[in-house]
């Protein structure tokens, strides 16, 4: 299946802003995070098709998946 991954803020550094990815059926959001070598502890928000999701969410063909880092400074 094919999904689109969007990265935000410093997750883009050395990676990409937006990329299509071919994944085996049943892949989870957390597996995509891991495959990008993103530390799960640095993830602030995960969204699938503009809805909040979790690391365990199973992605479907055509999903748009967005990963945002924790931003907490003031």
């Amino acid at each position: 299946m094919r999904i689109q991954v969007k990265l935000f803020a410093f997750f883009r550094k050395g990676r990409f802003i937006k990329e299509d990815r071919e994944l085996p059926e049943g892949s989870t959001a957390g597996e995509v995070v891991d495959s990008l070598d993103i530390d799960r502890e640095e993830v602030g928000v995960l969204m699938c098709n503009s809805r909040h999701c979790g690391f365990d969410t199973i992605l479907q063909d055509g999903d748009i998946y967005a990963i945002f880092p924790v931003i907490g400074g003031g």
Partner: protein
Amino acid sequence: MADQEAILASLKKEAEEGCISLEAAIIIGRSFSCSLRTVERISLNNSILPLRYQRNGLSCEQQLTLFKSTVSIIGCGGLGGRCAELLARLGVGRIILTDPDHFSESNLNRQLFCSSSSPGCRKVDVVAEGLQEINPTLETVRHSKHFDSESVQTADVVIDGLDSIPARKELSALCRSCSIPMVHGAVKDWYGRVGIDFSANHLTETTSRQTARTTPPPHVLPMTVSLIASLQVAETCKLILNSGTPLDRGWLQCDLLTADFDIINEDGN
């Protein structure tokens, strides 16, 4: 009442093209032994615009609404200090400042009211004194402590200038319990986020995931702080004046490194 009429008569006499200068207002206040704040209230109530608001381009009625409003700023460092300055220039009448901290040298890169002589001074004191220099009719309330209901309960809008996720969640819950909108802002490096946390949505809850790891204070660039604080004040001003479209369906994600500004809607639309 007689004094009010006499003050108004003086204001009308001294006004030029519908505006009254600060200097004239000070002289009127002295001659009637009343505060500059009282003079400003009478002036705005009678459609005489204080000259320093002329370039805001807002109506006298809108300036009066701002003058009558209270904004509570929680955290008076980078975001909070810049927001305070902008609100004072805009003409908000009362600002509550809450921050238990003192300035330190590492604040100098981004905190507006931090100068080379401020390390060691209480943030609320330095900010309140700076605001008074900008807008002498502003009423400031200082709380040099962790925020509590006293910090927010009289506010029309609360601004989140905090730098920790647990504190931000606590403030969001407090504002929700008082039904006061909280204008959220957060920054790191070149990146920032702005949104409005209403009792109806759960912006802070959904965007401020608590991670297990304790991290050191984040790096923050001064232009990121200025941008996010400006956006927070724009949202605050719109809420007070009930104008424009509030940023309330999600949040604005800013990436200054790639010059990307994305509105992230949370409802699937």
